């Protein structure tokens, strides 16, 4: 009985935390969508599909899933040189967009949770700030 009480207590504690995280993610994604529609959509397109052999897709991208830190670094400082996404090698230039760290966190949360992408861990401003060139 005592055990059950503790368990119930824990569940009650955990539910708001999970809900809060989901709310954080939703708000961050909403802000991130606005950033995406301003800075990213021209090349990576509305549904993250990219352009064949030119701009890598973000939708269901294995690179994004496996290289969280490098992906954030690419958005923060720009990207140049070869990159393999879903078996296709790209060699193009993405200039740094001049976004601040909170905007990068938001747009990463949007990208990493849209078009079939799913990430279990929220990107925070602190995480972006900690990533150096």
């Amino acid at each position: 009985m005592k055990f059950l009480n503790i368990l119930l207590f824990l569940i009650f504690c955990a539910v708001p935390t999970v809900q809060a995280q989901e709310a954080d993610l939703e708000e961050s994604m909403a802000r991130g969508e606005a950033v995406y529609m301003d800075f990213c959509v021209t090349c990576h397109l509305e549904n993250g599909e990219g352009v064949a052999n030119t701009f890598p897709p973000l939708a269901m991208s294995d690179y994004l899933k496996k290289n969280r830190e490098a992906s954030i670094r690419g958005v923060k400082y720009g990207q140049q040189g070869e990159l393999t996404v879903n078996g296709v090698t790209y060699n193009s230039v993405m200039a740094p967009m001049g976004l601040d760290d909170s905007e990068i966190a938001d747009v990463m949360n949007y990208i990493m949770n849209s078009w079939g992408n799913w990430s279990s861990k929220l990107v925070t401003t602190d995480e972006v700030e900690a990533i150096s060139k």
Partner: protein
Amino acid sequence: MKNSVFLLCSTLVFFYTSCAQDPENQVSDPSSTPFEAELLIDEMQIPWGMTFLPDGSMLVTEKSGEIVHFKNGAKTKVKEVPQVYTRGQGGLLDIEAHPDYANNGWIYISYSSEEGDEKGGNTALMRAKLKDNALVEKQLLYKATPNTTKGQHFGSRIVFDNEGYLFLSIGERGARDENPQDITRDGGKIYRFHDDGKIPQDNPFVSKDGAKTAIYSYGHRNPQGLAKHPETGKIWDNEHGPRGGDEINIIKPGANYGWPVITYGINYSGTPITDKTEMDGMEQPFHYWVPSIAPSGMAFVTSDKYGDWKGSILVGSLKFQYLERLVVEGEKVTDREKLMAEIGRVRDVKEGPDGLIYVAVEGKGVYKLVPKS
């Protein structure tokens, strides 16, 4: 997930059908070309604009905020360049020497600037002279307002006409419903100045109350190509449409080019912007592209060095990463050729004083098209 797959598929279907609808919008691969592309200036990230000086040297901008002076095969970084607002498509953009540079030494530079009280930036035009490898006598000639943190559509091409007027394009800064159709606001316009930045008294809107009197034409989206026609002396532009609807226009004083009231493009999302492609009082493009090639840079071929190219228009494609040649007969584009296929994002193209074509490519540098003998 299912939804996004469906959306992806329908987008692709739309993309390809819209391609097939319009046979005049097909680009052809020439079997042979009258040039070899030689990488003249290497290791550049985003060479945005370039100009030629009388001593045979070149000035090339790097979007991140540098100017490279290329002389006798060596690159030197120019000092004291303007501070740029690095955000989205903004940066250090076009550069153009005065037509009488040999006598007056003026160099014109467009860039995104934070000048002003509001947060963000907007397109600015400066002139300066080059002395001991640094910019001196810098004068801010124009700064569009208000500043905005939006990342897109700075425009920024500079060109002089035969009478010595300077034309500058400024894109609509991501405010398509506020700026392009309103002549009291900056953005979505092509401007005309005297070479010292003064506004010509015969500009079309000088007597209009509240108008930005430097405006020469309006209703533009994001012109990233401006060139002077070698025979008529008129200024032509090319500009990015949304999805589809990139255009070439012949610029006329006081004319309205229609964005976003009329367009051959649609939103990136696939939804329509307007059902109208033409309207009284609005100009039709000389040419439009569906799908978009994302045009940047523009040059008319005036030399006889490349076979029958004389009179053609050259335009860079950012999206499909090639140099496009448009064959013009009379008032019509009769053929489109894909040159330098898969070279990289072509940002700028110019014909040099030597009659040769120079092409600036992102991630590569500046190519010289050496004619095959």
